[in-house]
């Protein structure tokens, strides 16, 4: 027997508006709940997205290749030859959007007024461009002009701590493959502002060839960073590169390189879902209450329908439809509300008052809430699935009412 949906639909819809005040209050509650779900999800997603992006720009890349032992022993000794042959071919074809070979060594930088330990990055500025790994905000001076550039670009915070300035000379000290101190004076040609203050203190940029010369390692590099511009899809192309790299190199994705960062996505999804379910649970009492009341008010009518020959299943279906209409209206209103409130915030929410706390979590001072269809769908799924589950109990009770008792109820 096909369900006479049209008949039940009309009935459910009209019944919904029998007590319009109650329905409107419940609608408002659902709408607020749904709005909260999506808003929270957008904030969370904005945070995670930013953390992951910042993290990837610092790493950099969604994929890195190292000499086998480099990660265990991050020394210049464990450098690798620049990519050639098959590996080079893979790196130069889609979906790789950019790659860069870089020298990364621990170093000590000293001015007359102090010294700090830093990470010295020998880079090819052009190649880094594609990775977005260079500091965007050059505060003073100029950026590096090619891999042969002999100047240094340091962070503003580091410059302050070293009491050095643009154009001044500093000494950079590191270790060559024979464990001799390799040392060279260099001029500060640029001072950058980092996304995070920690980065400003930590990273010093120099031309790759200049660093290779300082360390006496020829053309060797420490790592190759690769980006495909979508951190969610690395797994699709990762195996090709790993295969081309061979066993002498270690190929790792960002989730392995930075487990903290890697855990973020799962944590965010988990948290968002838990939040949505909790909000829904708070809503569900009202929903069940509304249905119980709606049924209570028309017990007699339900008895009548049974007398007219409506199967219990149809009675149940009718109540479920009523609940579904209520949920759907609430969802539409809640989603609209979410879109309307999140859109004006797209340019970012200033959270600089807690900037350093955010930095502990790897984020910067502006939060961009990100409205994703996925979250809207998730909230819809949570509300519909759990909503219908919650409605099942009252609807079931209504369908099992004793018709005679229901008819004689006054």
């Amino acid at each position: 027997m096909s369900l006479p949906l049209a008949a039940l639909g009309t009935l459910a819809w009209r019944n919904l508006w029998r007590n319009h005040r109650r329905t409107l209050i419940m609608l408002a509650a659902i709408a607020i709940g749904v709005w909260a779900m999506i808003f929270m999800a957008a904030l969370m997603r904005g945070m995670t997205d930013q953390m992951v992006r910042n993290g990837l720009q610092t790493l950099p890349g969604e994929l890195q290749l190292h000499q086998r032992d480099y990660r265990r022993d991050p020394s210049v000794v464990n450098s690798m030859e620049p990519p050639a042959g098959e590996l080079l071919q893979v790196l130069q074809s889609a979906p790789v959007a950019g790659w860069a070979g870089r020298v990364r060594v621990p170093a000590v930088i000293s001015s007359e007024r102090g010294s700090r330990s830093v990470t010295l990055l020998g880079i090819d500025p052009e190649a880094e461009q594609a990775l977005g790994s260079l500091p965007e905000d050059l505060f003073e001076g100029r950026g590096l002009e090619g891999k042969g550039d002999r100047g240094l670009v340091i962070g503003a915070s580091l410059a302050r701590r070293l009491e050095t300035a643009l154009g001044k000379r500093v000494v950079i000290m590191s270790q060559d493959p024979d464990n001799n101190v390799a040392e060279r004076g260099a001029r500060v040609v640029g001072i950058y502002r980092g996304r995070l203050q920690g980065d400003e203190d930590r990273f010093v940029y120099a031309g790759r060839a200049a660093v290779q010369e300082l360390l006496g390692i020829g053309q060797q590099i420490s790592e190759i960073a690769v980006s495909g511009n979508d951190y969610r899809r690395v797994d699709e192309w990762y195996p090709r590169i790993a295969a081309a790299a061979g066993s002498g190199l270690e190929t790792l994705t960002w989730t392995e390189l930075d487990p903290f960062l890697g855990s973020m996505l799962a944590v965010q999804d988990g948290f968002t879902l838990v939040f949505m379910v909790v909000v829904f649970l708070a809503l569900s009492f009202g929903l069940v209450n509304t249905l119980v009341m709606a049924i209570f008010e028309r017990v007699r009518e339900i008895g009548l329908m049974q007398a007219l020959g409506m199967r219990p299943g149809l009675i149940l279906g009718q109540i479920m439809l009523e609940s579904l209409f209520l949920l759907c209206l609430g969802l539409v209103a809640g989603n609209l509300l979410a879109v309307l409130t999140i859109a004006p915030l797209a340019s970012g929410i200033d959270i600089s008052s807690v900037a350093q706390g955010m930095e502990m979590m790897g984020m910067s001072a502006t939060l961009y809430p990100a409205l994703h269809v996925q979250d809207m769908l998730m909230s819809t799924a949570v509300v519909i699935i759990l909503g219908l589950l919650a409605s099942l109990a009252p609807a079931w009770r209504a369908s099992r009412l004793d018709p005679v008792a229901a008819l004689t109820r006054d």
Partner: protein
Amino acid sequence: MSDIACRELCKTFHQGGETITALDHVSLDIEEGSFVCLFGPSGSGKTTLLNALGGLDTPDSGAITVGGQRLDGLSRGELADLRLHNIGFVFQAYNLITVLTARENVEFIMQVQGVPAGERRALATRVLEEVGLAGLEGRRPGELSGGQQQRVAVARAIATSPALVLADEPTANLDSRSAAQLMDLFVTLNKERGVTFVISTHDARVMGYARRLIGMRDGLIVSDEQQQPHAMDV
């Protein structure tokens, strides 16, 4: 189809330690096309009997057969289907679904039965006209008088061409004019379509319409006689 047979029906209610016998070994046969009135004092068991015949309520013991179909052993769903297709109910009051208009009330059951829209509409218009409600199809129950509401209920009951209509004090809330109109309607349907009517009532004038009068008291059938029907004076 509407031959009704009950054998040894018993139904008791327990209320506050007291046991009330609503049906006490009731046996009864009603042939197809009958026009039967149940009468008796309040509490004598009329409603209980009608509910049992319609499969709304299950007796404690005894057997009911409607149109050759044993009711005991049927599931709630099967009983519902039986009512949907074969039995029409008219109650004393609150017969209609309040959120639906007169036409929708009539169409509703047909829609559940799966009657195509066009046919449904035509049929609803016709029966509403037949019961004298032409022009009032779009009104909701709250906008109709008690008599009009009862006529919508009748229209609904007959639209699906049931073989049996069970009416529990259908005129109790009506003035005598409306009551007479309703009873005339019943008689017409009984004559022209052969619909079996079983009507419970306190009203002597309603009893006048019946061809068979069954008297009840304390759950027992105390009289059962054929009579020459006579319409009530208005």
